[in-house]
């Protein structure tokens, strides 16, 4: 058995592995991740049936920007954090992680330490206000054309053979060149 061999040849590694298994089991039970151990279902759960799905699109003067022409990494960096931004916007620009930080640290550490932890782990309104500007800079970098103005819209795509989009687009933010 692998662990027996490790124990015979390199005791320290063996104890590290056993401790890691123990701590990981504890944190898994608590629903807390410790990268590089994840708590993903890896597409294992039953996917519910929906008629449509919410998507984020980039609207330019030439129509919807085709994000498929970007690499997977560029698309992820551009599009994933928009959903994050929308969530914050919905909740009045408050960071939902704030509750977790409060649960873990409030009244357990001094006010100064607590403020420091909040600043280290949460986004404040200044970060969120600066976000559309950053987004435009990165967008300009990853595609060759510079658009004077770009609109980020949230909409729905309906599932059928043509995958048609709903008529209404809700604007998330508009950003223009200064």
């Amino acid at each position, binding site marked *: 058995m692998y662990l027996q061999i490790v124990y015979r040849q390199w005791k320290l590694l063996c104890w590290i592995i056993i401790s890691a298994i123990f701590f990981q089991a504890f944190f898994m039970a608590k629903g807390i991740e410790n990268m590089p151990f994840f708590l993903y279902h890896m597409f294992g759960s039953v996917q519910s049936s929906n008629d449509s799905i919410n998507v984020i699109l980039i609207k330019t003067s030439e129509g919807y920007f085709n994000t498929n022409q970007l690499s997977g990494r560029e698309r*992820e960096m551009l599009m994933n954090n928009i959903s994050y931004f929308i969530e914050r916007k919905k909740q009045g620009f408050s960071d939902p992680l704030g509750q977790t930080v409060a649960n873990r640290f409030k009244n357990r550490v001094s006010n100064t330490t607590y403020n420091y932890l909040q600043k280290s782990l949460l986004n404040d309104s200044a970060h969120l206000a600066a976000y559309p500007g950053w987004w435009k800079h990165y967008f300009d970098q990853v595609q060759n054309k510079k658009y004077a103005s770009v609109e980020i819209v949230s909409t729905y795509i309906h599932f059928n053979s043509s995958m048609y989009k709903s008529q209404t687009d809700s604007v998330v933010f508009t950003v223009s060149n200064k």
Partner: protein
Amino acid sequence: MKPSTQSYYPRQLMAPVIFSWLFMILIYFFSTNSLLSQLQQPVLISPESDNTFWLLHILRLPQWLLQHWGMALAFDIILTSSCIICIFVPQQRIFTWITVIGTWLLYVCYCTAAGKHYAQIGYLLVPVSFLALKTEKFSLLWEGIRYWICFLYTCAGLYKLYYGGFAYQLNMSHILQQMNAEWLFLKPTGIQATIIRYLADHPGISQWLYRMAALVELSLIIGFFTKKFDRLLIIGLFVFHLGNFLLLHIPFVEQSLIFAPFFPWKKWAVNFHTTNSND
């Protein structure tokens, strides 16, 4: 007379190959505007509920690297240079540490800025083994990484059984719809789009693909007991990731290093007359 086999993994032969592979991954990061200095100083952070991310964010390391372009550029240069040094000078530990810590920091910074913690971490795990210089210890770490990868994929297969995805007839069809809605709207024609649409419209066929994928993941359990079928496991893993890429647009460049522990390194070492000088 050359030996027919050897007990330990040939670290000297493997280090240049693995770090060249890692270097190519860093080139991929560069070509896709994903190195820290290319991110345009992102403003949002997303440590989520992850202790590793929390620790680094409390130390304010990701924020500092992301917010100072000069530091980000210096970081990219140091990481890339140390990776190159590891290719040409495999028998050292300092630059291996710098490369390993650097790739982990790059991952944390990228994920916190992107607002999602990605599971493609093959490029973080595999180089860790090279922190050990002695071939005995290196071999133990390398075997450990191999078991970890077997565990990871076996779990993914078990999840599909446990959470019900395997048995639900429409599961893959729904996954295809959800993962491809935007993609199909923006790119409605072409062979790939036609295949995806066909599979989404034929749940019976797509669900069998899902089940085959789950069986490939589950087959990694064999890796705990024998190395005889490693070649088949690599083929299975490659086809699995290629399928994910073509049907769900999940790239696997960063994850590709997980194939390395299944290569017949010992046999290659014997064939190439490589000996471990650091025993």
